[in-house]
């Protein structure tokens, strides 16, 4: 019977079906993994206090978030050097984010489950998110203003909340002044400097212009002095307050509030509080700038760069792709040359992006970078020229891949458009062009946009699924 079953070929069909299922499981699995790992990141996890016996017998308190658990089979643990009792099947280890990098030197540590004597989550444990040195975990002792204690014990927590809000408002003002107002002055100064240099290069620099430029400069200086006074006042204000906190080992440290982003007690937070916290963190992640060498804060600059590049690339390259595809499909005489072009376009899409990168570096960046520098930015430093060339390179090279992808897709899509329509209308006396504009583009368009965008969405990497099917 089994032989008959095999002869019918059914098992092979099932095996093929299994390949589809496996692929589907892999897709969903990867997306799920990213989603779960990524989405869980900002959820405030409870802060736990462990009473832990170090391998040397010393009892110690460890405060931190329980991040991960690893379970190792006994034999494997033995081979890596852990002493295992005979009745132990597995070695369980916890990864603890203990923070306090400025005090202990490490953010994370592994502890052995069997050495944990006690584990609890007291309500008063707090997390301080700082601008430097990462998170702080511990207990709040007091709040200080200009070095004097203003609140202690139970009053400290509400007091620190209001103080933090004040400090954050001041911090925002400082950031605004430094970036926007002072930044604008610096920009004007730089423009003046470049103007001066340009005039000097063109031999148009005389006493009259010199006086005018000097006057403008002096005006800007006055304005700058004004902002500087404001800034120093604000800095004094923000440096006034600080909080005193106790670490896991009982030592007291003082944290100035100008270094604090937020402060919370995760063990007392309700689900609603946690949702709010989560939302705030996600918004911060998407709209803020990175801190601490890109380990904290947001990713806005990266998002901006990605969107910017994709947009520039699409604007420059879409017309090429669409028009070339339309021409190749609808008007060109099909023959050896069009076949050659199709092969080339396919190659354009299939060449690894790193090759475009190397080409971009060698050609756009280093060659015209040198030429354009003087032509486009007279008198400015070498940086601007390179940057300019970098931008050109960025979207040009990404554009190449995109061009090929969009091109392929358009040709496929237009190919699917029934020839009957075009023939009939040509027969009815309409010009080829008008006829195509009326129907071809109108029908093809909405979907084109959609697919082209998804091609770019794949990171400009390689037109993604768009050309996965190749040209038709």
């Amino acid at each position, binding site marked *: 019977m*089994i032989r008959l*079953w095999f002869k*019918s*070929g*059914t*098992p*092979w*069909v*099932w*095996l*093929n*079906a*299994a*390949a*589809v*299922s*496996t*692929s*589907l*499981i*892999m*897709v*969903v699995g*990867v997306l799920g*993994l*990213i989603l779960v*790992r990524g989405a869980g990141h900002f959820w405030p996890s409870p802060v736990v206090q462990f009473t832990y016996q170090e391998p040397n017998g010393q009892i110690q308190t460890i405060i931190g978030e329980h991040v991960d658990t690893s379970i190792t*089979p006994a*034999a*494997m643990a*033995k*081979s890596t050097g852990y002493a295992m009792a005979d009745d132990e099947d597995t070695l369980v280890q916890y990864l603890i984010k203990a923070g306090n990098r400025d005090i202990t030197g490490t953010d994370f540590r592994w502890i052995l489950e069997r050495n944990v004597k006690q584990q609890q989550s007291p309500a008063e444990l707090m997390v301080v998110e700082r601008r430097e040195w990462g998170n702080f975990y511990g207990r709040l002792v007091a709040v200080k203003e200009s070095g004097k204690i203003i609140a202690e014990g139970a009053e400290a927590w509400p007091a620190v909340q209001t103080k933090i809000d004040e400090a954050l408002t001041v911090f925002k003002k400082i950031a605004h002044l430094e970036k926007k107002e002072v930044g604008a002055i610096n920009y004007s100064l730089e423009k003046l400097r470049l103007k001066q240099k340009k005039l000097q290069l063109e031999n148009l620099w005389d006493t009259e212009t010199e006086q005018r430029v000097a006057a403008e400069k002096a005006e800007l200086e006055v304005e700058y002095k004004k902002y500087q006074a404001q800034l120093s006042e604000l800095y004094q204000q923000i440096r006034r307050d600080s909080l005193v906190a106790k670490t896991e080992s009982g030592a007291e440290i003082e944290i100035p509030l100008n270094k604090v982003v937020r402060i919370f007690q995760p063990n007392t937070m309700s689900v609603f509080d946690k949702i709010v916290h989560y939302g705030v963190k996600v918004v911060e992640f998407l709209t803020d700038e990175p801190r601490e060498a890109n380990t904290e804060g947001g990713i806005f600059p990266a998002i901006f760069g990605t969107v910017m590049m994709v947009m520039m690339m699409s604007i420059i390259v879409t017309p090429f792709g669409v028009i070339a595809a339309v021409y190749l499909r609808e008007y060109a005489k099909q023959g050896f040359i069009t*076949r050659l072009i*199709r*092969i080339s376009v*396919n*190659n354009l899409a*299939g*060449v*690894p*992006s*790193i*090759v475009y*990168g*190397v*080409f971009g*570096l060698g050609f756009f960046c*280093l060659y015209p970078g040198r030429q354009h520098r003087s032509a486009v930015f007279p008198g400015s430093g070498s940086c601007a020229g390179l940057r300019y060339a970098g931008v050109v390179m960025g979207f040009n090279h990404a554009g190449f891949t995109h061009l090929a992808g969009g091109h392929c897709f358009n040709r496929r899509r237009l190919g699917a458009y029934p020839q009957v329509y075009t023939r009939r209308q040509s027969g009815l006396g309409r010009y080829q062009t008008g006829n195509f504009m009326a129907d071809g583009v109108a029908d093809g368009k909405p979907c084109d946009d959609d697919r082209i965008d*998804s091609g770019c*969405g*794949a*990171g400009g*990497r390689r037109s*993604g*699924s768009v050309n*996965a*099917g*190749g*040209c*038709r």
Partner: protein
Amino acid sequence: MIGDSSGLVSQWSMVKDKLNRPAMQKTRSFKVSDKAVVSINAEQRRKGFMTTDADGIVGIYHSTAERQMIKERVSDALPTAAVLSPRANALLVQSADGKMHFWHIDNEHPEVSIKSLWQKVWYESYPKPDYIWQSSSANSDFEPKYSLTPLVFGTLKAAFYAMLVAMPLALMGAIYTAYFMAPRMRQYVKPSIEIMGALPTVILGFLAGLWLAPFMEEHLAGLFVMLMIIPVGVMLFAFAWQFVPKAIAHNLSGGWDAALLIPIILLSGWFAFKVSVPLEAFLFHGSLRDWFKTELGIGYDQRNALVVGVAMGFAVIPTIFSIAEDAIFSVPKHLTVGSLALGATPWQTMVRVVLLTASPGIFSAVMIGFGRAVGETMIVLMATGNTPVMDLSVFQGLRTLAANIAVEMPESEVDSTHYRVLFLAALVLFMFTFVFNTLAEVIRQRLREKYSSL
């Protein structure tokens, strides 16, 4: 360097012998001239040297590349002294007739030769000639080693393992999706698998390096058990399925088999991981990795070809799947219907009629997939460890051309030999993908012509 009266210059180097004692050994020699060698000058910053012979002929050579750069008569009389400038861009020769000769030398990239790029080279203080890529180092008397062979080897190795994972899954998946699957399910399945291709490879590489590699290191046995158990589980289920009452089977199946199999595969995968722990303890003293090392002498790197194979296979599957599926799906219906009417089973029709007709399309799918795998950068960059070794083992790392460019291009000095060799690496990579893509496209165009006549 030793020159003798017959015009032979030989290079000797400190090499560890069989007993691990340092000994001088001749690594290579150059036939400089027929006359006696008068002087040898080594370049200060590179592995080049200049010789002068009794006839007044000056030769400039490069030892690593085993290249003669130039041979030129400088003076008619016997040269008495010769010297190279520190940057090796000028030379001064004094001859017996009392003349001084000053020459400019334009010798920018002597390190590169066919031999130094592609063949085994005996580098200084190495025990034997070898293929080595080591473009820079911290010390100043360093001999750059620009062998592209380990990189090409790494590229092909990564692509090979990726294809090993991707080809069966993608082609079998394509066969089922195009021919056996219910149209409504196909409508959902095809785009979902193609979505894999839209996932940026950086994400896949990141996951492969930071999640998959440690996971595999820990569950290596589970992975192998899974490879064995899942097909068995699927077969058992398929066999049992015949005994399900026809009424239920007809409602559930009919092209939805793949959906039915998802829980089966998940279950047998889970079972494989559960079973692997005691199995590993019982058969391999607890750790398959250690067993490989002690019993078979196979070392295990965390970032290895297996990880890359799975991750890059994942990235290549949608490409192959999509093109192969299109090819199979567009096999004219009258061929399959005719075959079925003559009494062939669906599987026979598949193998003897459909696959045969679609074979050029499938071939071009595989070619394009291979081109993708060869050029892939981010996955190999993050998941291979980037060790330029030539080792076929699945558990060893590798370095591909693409990853090498990505790693070293930002560090290399503009217009240096290193920089140019990286450009050459990019050209090699381009040639690879160019050949595969062109081949695939030409075949596909042929196929299309054939179909339009059917």
